[in-house]
């Protein structure tokens, strides 16, 4: 395909490292017991920094990215989904959950061997399925001690001491609970370091995304998925925080050298919600039109933590360490952790789609977008929440919107051909022609 070369491109140098960290992560979890360590399971949003206080030999598996990896493996995914349906669970439930359960029911780990049963479950709860997900895992695994922290206290703009107390209170209870179920002594110093790391990792990721405001965009969303995922695995780890800094430096260089993610960028888009993981080729198809998805509230704001800068634009939230705050005890660490997480962009729309619309319009403006591609994702009731209102809001703000139905983890609910036909119509209305 002959596309016109407007910009230089070059592969990301730290790409291989990202891949290695991810593979190591899943190996570490599976083999934790062999090394006398502990295994826990929980969501990508859970306060992973807290179990870190149990020691350096405690490994986690976060459910959403694990399920997404399953979804990318169509055959295994189908077996998982059907195993779950056989067990009597509804087909329209969260497809991450259904892939994950299937892997447990079949007792097969995506990377070979039996499914490594966790020693305990450490989850948080903002979407209706979060805590219930593990209630069922516990049913399936024959009872696993689990602790879930309710974080649904309302949008960040309304957060006050009482709301923080509610979270922090649960966190304190959670730490006592962790000591009880693991029989280990809790180390506050490790917690404090983990909190520093989480703030650093999540702010630096926001910094990386901010760099994508550049034209040409140094990163396209398909690549970003494989990078942001590390934050969903262990955002509280030094390893990930350090890697994101390395990544940021490389992306800075790309911006300086005007290196584009695609050679022919003429149309800048953003998506929304998780993509249909088995069909990322959809993003390649966009390139035929010189269209690049520069990100989404999902890739920016699920891990990234943001704030409005003095000049009114969006940028990484200033970390406690940057503010010169020294964390000296457990309670202070937990308060900072709670406040930091409650400001996470992807948590705001649970209370009102209009808060999400505002953030999306901001991205559309600051990242100079031509249009928006909304994935009406049947697989995730949490992130699809209010998406129809987001569509109305974006159109009202003057941004053309294309919607397509699909499912992040159930290929039976996504039709690539029909979706590409929609892209054709959308590009035609935006006035972009296919090349080659």
């Amino acid at each position: 395909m002959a596309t016109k070369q407007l910009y230089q491109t070059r592969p990301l140098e730290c790409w291989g490292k990202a891949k290695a960290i991810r593979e190591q992560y899943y190996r570490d979890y599976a083999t934790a017991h062999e090394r006398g360590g502990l295994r826990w399971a929980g969501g990508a949003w859970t306060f992973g920094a807290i179990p870190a206080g149990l020691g350096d030999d405690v490994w986690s598996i976060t459910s959403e990215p694990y399920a997404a990896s399953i979804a990318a493996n169509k055959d295994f995914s189908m077996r998982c989904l059907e195993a779950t349906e056989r067990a009597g669970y509804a087909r329209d439930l969260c497809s991450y959950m259904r892939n994950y359960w299937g892997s447990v029911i079949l007792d097969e780990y995506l990377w070979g061997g039996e499914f490594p049963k966790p020693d305990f479950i450490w989850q948080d709860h903002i979407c209706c399925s979060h805590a219930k997900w593990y209630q069922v895992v516990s049913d399936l695994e024959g009872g696993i001690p689990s602790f879930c922290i309710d974080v649904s206290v309302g949008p960040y703009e309304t957060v006050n001491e009482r709301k923080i107390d509610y979270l922090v209170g649960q966190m304190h209870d959670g730490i006592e609970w962790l000591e009880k179920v693991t029989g280990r002594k809790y180390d506050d110093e490790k917690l404090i370091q983990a909190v520093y790391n989480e703030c650093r990792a999540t702010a630096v990721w926001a910094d990386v995304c901010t760099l994508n405001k550049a034209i040409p965009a140094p990163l396209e969303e398909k690549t970003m998925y494989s990078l942001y995922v590390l934050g969903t695995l262990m955002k509280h780890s030094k390893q990930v925080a350090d890697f994101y800094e390395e990544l940021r430096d490389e992306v800075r260089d790309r911006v300086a050298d005007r290196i584009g993610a695609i050679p022919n960028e003429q149309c800048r888009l953003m998506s929304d919600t998780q993509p249909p993981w088995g069909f990322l080729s959809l993003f390649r198809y966009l390139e035929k039109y010189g269209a690049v998805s520069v990100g989404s509230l999902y890739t920016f704001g699920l891990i990234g933590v943001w704030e409005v800068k003095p000049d009114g634009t969006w940028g990484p939230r200033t970390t406690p360490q940057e503010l010169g705050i020294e964390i000296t005890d457990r309670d202070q660490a937990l308060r900072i952790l709670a406040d930091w997480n409650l400001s996470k962009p992807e948590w705001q729309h649970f209370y009102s789609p209009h808060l999400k619309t505002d953030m999306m319009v901001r991205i559309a403006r600051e990242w100079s977008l031509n249009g928006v591609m909304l994935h009406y994702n049947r697989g995730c009731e949490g992130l699809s929440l209010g998406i129809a209102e987001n569509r109305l809001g974006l159109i009202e703000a003057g941004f053309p919107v294309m919607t397509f139905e699909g499912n992040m983890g159930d290929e039976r609910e996504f039709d690539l051909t029909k979706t590409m036909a929609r892209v054709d119509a959308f590009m035609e209305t935006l006035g972009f022609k296919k090349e080659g």
Partner: protein
Amino acid sequence: MFDKLRDWERHRHDYAKDWKDRTGGKVVGYFCTYAPEEIMYAAGVLPVRILGSHEPQDVTEPHIFGMYCPFCRDCLAQGLKGRYDYLDGIMISQSCLHVRQAYTSWEKHIPVDFHYYLPMPAKVQTPRALPYLTGELAEFRKAIEEWTGRTISDKDLDKAIAVYNENRRLMRDIYDFRKNDKPPLTGQEAMEMVISSQMTDKAEHNEELKKILAGLPKRNSGREPGVRLMILGSEDDDIEFVNMVEKCGATFVVDDHCTGSRYFWNGVEPLENRLEAIARRYIDRVPCPSKDWEDRTRVQHIVDLAKAWNVSGAIVIQQKFCDPHELDIPAIRKALQGNGVKTLFLEFDVTVPLGQFKVRVEAFLEMLVEEDLFD
């Protein structure tokens, strides 16, 4: 005997409009039964529940993605069609994501004088929930006071609590009559009773309930009860369905619905801090599955109801796409079957295909009763 309640249930909008004319008071629509009605009632506000109308509609497509439950879309449709145009305000007490969208779209597209989002804790099983909710209720009380321009005294709260507790007690007394071998009321009448309670001034509802309670012991429903059934699951105000089943030779004698027992099962226990007392009531109530974790406390409660009301079968219904219930139903069915209660599962939409459901229901009943069909 239940005519008045049925009339209120059928003509809920007329009732509310008439109530406004009579009292000059404000009416607030609420979206989920976690709404602390006592606080609104104490300020002379009439809280009414927003429910759907079971008609096919095409007005919500631009606002709510079709993967969310038909109930939340049906609710929003009522607003978009102006059926609740008499509301002075709306409020929601955080429950499931689905119905939350009906609220947020309503707030944006249908002008109301007052709207309030109460972040009711999802983890009702943590002791941390009580002080937190008590504080949230204090803020809610403040908001209501500012809006109505009327301060809510402890005395007002006590009065409201008394009226609400009486309503709960009376409905439980009536539910007890359903334990009889020949229940003096049908499942349809029970459902109409509870829904009408969600639509009317409880003081007036209580008067009606007292009359009914006085008459029940002597009442002969004049129908064979047939198979004793329980109905449970998602929000359900599908009276047509209940009626269809009860025409097939069965009677619903108990339920676990937020349009039924779950709405009124427990009352407010008096405490010096009235708001704390109210908070405790909503934290301790029979939970919606979206709040029933880490432990599943509702399952045992349902089994206990099935035993106490001596049911031989249970119809487990679920609003299409209702995730919270979908996540509990396998465990509930297992528990019921384990206790010798057979279950029939049905998925509800805005309107249900009575023809197709009738076959399932009749086959289910054939399964439960020993007919002389076999040698």
